């Protein structure tokens, strides 16, 4: 079966090369059948990648240790769901996932534009297949998922315990979907510029693709944040880690593009800017993939001495050079049709929004790549930390939230100052009220957080006002009751009102970020059983220790051989709040040199953080039990001495003795407690953003053109038509 997998890859790359040739030949010689054959090559590629992926999944599920990737990432005791996810736990498997998702999303995109944008789609097909060919080439040349070892090992190394977290099932597929979807607009951008057809239909299609990339990348980023929040030592939900930043950069470019695209649609402006953004999206997505695999930047994410850096650098160089060439050589096609009518207009607000997003992207890019930049310029590698990032991103984020409230209430093309002020009056009052309320509640010392709350209140009020007014207008004109009118309003204007929902989500998310980062309390006490500590009004009492042995009894179902933890009783003002059960899991290292008992717990240790969440606050607890306490070490050493390595059942009994000793003579344990206000609003905000994005991406129902008596308003005369199909 490994040969089937490699065969599928080989067939895949042949299909890619054929498809590139057929598409370009077809479009250059004006032969539809070759263009169609090229397009169908993408479907055929998807079939080969599904086959290759299936071979690897079957190998994992059937414990075929002959496959190197299976032996490295799975074991008999690895739970089933983690076996499925183990495909993307390795370099080789994650490249295969990338190629599969790229082929699937490309197939969907080309299917959706079937019969339209013939020439653009042909070049886009060639570009998409070129990217897939690159990833398959990486697998065949550097990291083949189907390499085998003979004789096969009798057992696998198991999935790294750090990856045994439910989010492992979904975070990488979402991130990779986001990255691969960023390549689709890139490819269609290349096609549009080569053919010099940057037109309305292209814009319509680009908007959907960009929105899809934005949605998936956003989901992946939030899932990663949630995962990071639930692990010890990963920097909380956001640590400005290089790989986190790398996923955020194309998302920022996509956000800017979704907004500035509307300006091009309505006014024929910002064509060069939009083309640049589309190319930036794709390039940044590839850069993100590159960062994780090249080892060029330090991060909590995985790298090593992987050799994929050079091919990626060549690809990124080609993408940048090609993008610049296309934009410069097609600047005649990208000339703006109009100019900005007024600074007080939605166009201006969107332009400012784009500048803020570009500023954010520049700051994050600079900070992320600073170690390389500083080494190139000064010869010494240096890095900047979270305080530096926060210094620049926080003010920019404040402006962004403010603009998310201003944009909706200002008209396209032009707005009068008096009109704008009248529309902004209520949101401004709400912002002031929020400010007063927050300060009145005794919140002090964090002016930026207070400003963020005020701006978020402003944005929420502005959007609520839009919904209210729009519903009222529709109710009046259709005679419907408000709930029905609201649904009708959203149905007919999905883009606008879906976008407004996204703005609500953004405001909620930033409320959560501001509150949790500015007003977090954290302590790291060492506690004996029975001791307690106070934090932010909560009392955390260490009631008793916990211990469990063998994968079967592991409460977190992650395959830990030994799990030591604590029962923490939380009270506030004498009243019971909750019980937290943090623990640390110890895993098998597979190293016989650590001893028969030692190797069972000598591998990766993973903290299982305890979380209690309400909309008002999160209680977060982690424990680091002293596994090296003398009373436990004594038992471990005796066990290593007495039990040979090939008797794991007896070694497990020694572990049980260690567990029992831990419960009887519990050493002091180190704890980490955090009380963070309103963290849940980050996840709620993200969910709202997702809903808004999904509403915005679906097409509105076809508006029936009604025959109405419409005269074109002065000064132009009616051109021989008294009745028109222009809808009212």
């Amino acid at each position: 079966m490994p040969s089937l997998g490699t065969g599928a890859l080989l067939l895949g790359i042949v299909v890619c090369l054929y498809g590139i040739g057929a598409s370009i030949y077809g479009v250059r010689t004006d032969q539809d059948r070759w263009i169609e054959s090229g397009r169908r090559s993408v479907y055929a590629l998807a079939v080969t990648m599904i086959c290759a992926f299936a071979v690897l999944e079957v190998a994992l599920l059937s414990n075929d240790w002959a496959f190197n990737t299976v032996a490295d990432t799975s074991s008999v005791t690895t739970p089933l769901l983690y076996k499925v996810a183990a495909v993307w736990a390795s370099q080789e498997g994650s490249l295969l996932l990338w190629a599969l998702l790229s082929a699937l999303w490309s197939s969907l995109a080309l299917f959706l534009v079937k019969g339209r944008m013939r020439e653009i789609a042909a070049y886009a097909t060639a570009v998409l297949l070129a990217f897939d060919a690159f990833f398959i080439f990486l697998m065949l040349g550097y990291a083949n998922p189907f390499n085998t070892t003979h004789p096969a090992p009798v057992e696998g190394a198991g999935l790294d315990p750090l990856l045994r977290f439910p989010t492992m099932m979904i975070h990488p597929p979402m991130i990779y979907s986001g990255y691969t979807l960023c390549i689709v607009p890139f490819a269609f951008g290349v096609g549009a510029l080569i053919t010099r057809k940057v037109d309305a239909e292209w814009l319509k299609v680009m908007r959907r693709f960009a929105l899809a990339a934005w949605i998936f990348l956003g989901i992946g980023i939030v899932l990663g944040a949630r995962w990071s929040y639930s692990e010890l030592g990963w920097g909380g939900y956001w640590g400005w880690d290089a790989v986190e930043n790398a996923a955020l950069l194309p998302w920022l470019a996509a956000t800017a593009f979704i907004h500035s695209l509307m300006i091009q649609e309505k006014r024929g402006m910002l064509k060069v800017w939009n083309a640049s953004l589309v190319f930036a999206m794709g390039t940044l997505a590839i850069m993100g993939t590159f960062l994780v695999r090249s080892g060029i930047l330090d991060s909590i994410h995985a790298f090593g001495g992987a050799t994929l850096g050079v091919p990626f650098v060549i690809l990124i160089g080609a993408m940048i050079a090609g993008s610049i060439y296309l934009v410069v050589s097609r600047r005649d096609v990208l000339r703006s049709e109009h100019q900005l009518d007024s600074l007080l207009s939605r166009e201006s607000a969107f332009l400012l929004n784009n500048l803020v997003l570009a500023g954010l992207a520049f700051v994050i890019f600079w900070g992320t790549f600073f170690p390389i930049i500083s080494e190139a310029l000064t010869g010494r590698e240096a890095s900047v930390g979270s305080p530096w990032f926060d210094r620049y991103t926080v003010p920019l984020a404040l402006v962004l939230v403010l603009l998310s409230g201003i944009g909706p209430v200002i008209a396209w093309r032009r707005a009068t100052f008096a009109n704008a002020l009248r529309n902004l009056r209520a949101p401004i009052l709400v912002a002031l009220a929020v400010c007063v309320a927050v300060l009145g509640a005794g919140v002090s010392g964090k002016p930026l957080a207070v400003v963020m709350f005020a701006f978020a209140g402003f944005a929420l009020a502005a959007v609520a006002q839009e919904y209210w007014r729009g519903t009222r207008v529709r109710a009046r004109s259709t005679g419907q009751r408000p709930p029905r009118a609201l649904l009708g309003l959203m149905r007919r204007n999905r883009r606008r009102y879906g976008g407004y929902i996204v703005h609500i989500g953004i405001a909620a998310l930033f409320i959560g970020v501001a509150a949790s980062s500015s007003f977090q309390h954290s302590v790291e006490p060492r506690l004996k059983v029975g001791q307690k500590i106070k934090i932010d009004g909560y009392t955390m009492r260490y009631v008793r220790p916990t211990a469990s042995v063998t994968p079967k009894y592991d409460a977190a179902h992650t395959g830990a051989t030994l799990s030591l933890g604590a029962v923490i009783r939380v009270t506030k003002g004498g009243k019971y709040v909750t019980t937290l059960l943090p623990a640390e899991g110890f895993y098998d290292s597979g190293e016989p040199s650590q001893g028969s008992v030692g190797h069972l717990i000598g591998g990766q240790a993973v903290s299982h953080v305890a979380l209690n969440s309400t909309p008002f606050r999160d209680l977060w607890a982690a424990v680091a039990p002293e596994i090296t306490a003398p009373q436990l070490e004594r038992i471990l050493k005796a066990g290593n001495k007495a039990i040979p390595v090939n008797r794991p059942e007896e070694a497990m009994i020694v572990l049980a003795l260690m567990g029992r000793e831990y419960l009887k003579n519990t050493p002091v344990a180190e704890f980490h407690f955090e009380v963070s206000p309103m963290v849940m609003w980050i996840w709620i905000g993200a969910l709202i953003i997702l809903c808004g994005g999904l509403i915005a991406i679906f097409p509105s129902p076809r508006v029936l053109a009604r025959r109405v008596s419409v005269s074109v308003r002065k000064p132009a005369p009616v051109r021989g038509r008294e009745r028109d199909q222009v809808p009212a």
Partner: protein
Amino acid sequence: MNPARKRTIRLVVALTAAVTLASALIYTSFSAASPAISPSQLIHDAVPGRSYQLTGTVVTGSIRHYGEVLEFQVKDRAGEDAVPVRYTGEVPDPFHEGREVIVTVSKQGSQYIGERNSLITKCPSKYKSAPPAATRKY
């Protein structure tokens, strides 16, 4: 003022603001940055009292826990020079001998004291170039 002139003024103002902000950003990044340094560089160049971002690999068998204090040695990725580090604070889950770490240290006497909660450990190399043959059971 004619529209073309207005547009030129807007462009100049915007560009000036962008250049000013970018310059501030670039300047502060150089002044706020912590230089990354390997153990061999630290041994030769470290000035007492100054902070350095030490990066290297945890020496096998060097990890010792003394209550809340963690002591370990960090060696060059490729090379044998190692420095002893005394650290208190949060120990990330991936921390283990043989793993690559980044920790902010300052020299005090002959010791290097790790800044509290500054220890970062890179995840074990899932994107390694060679398979972990040693961990496979035959």
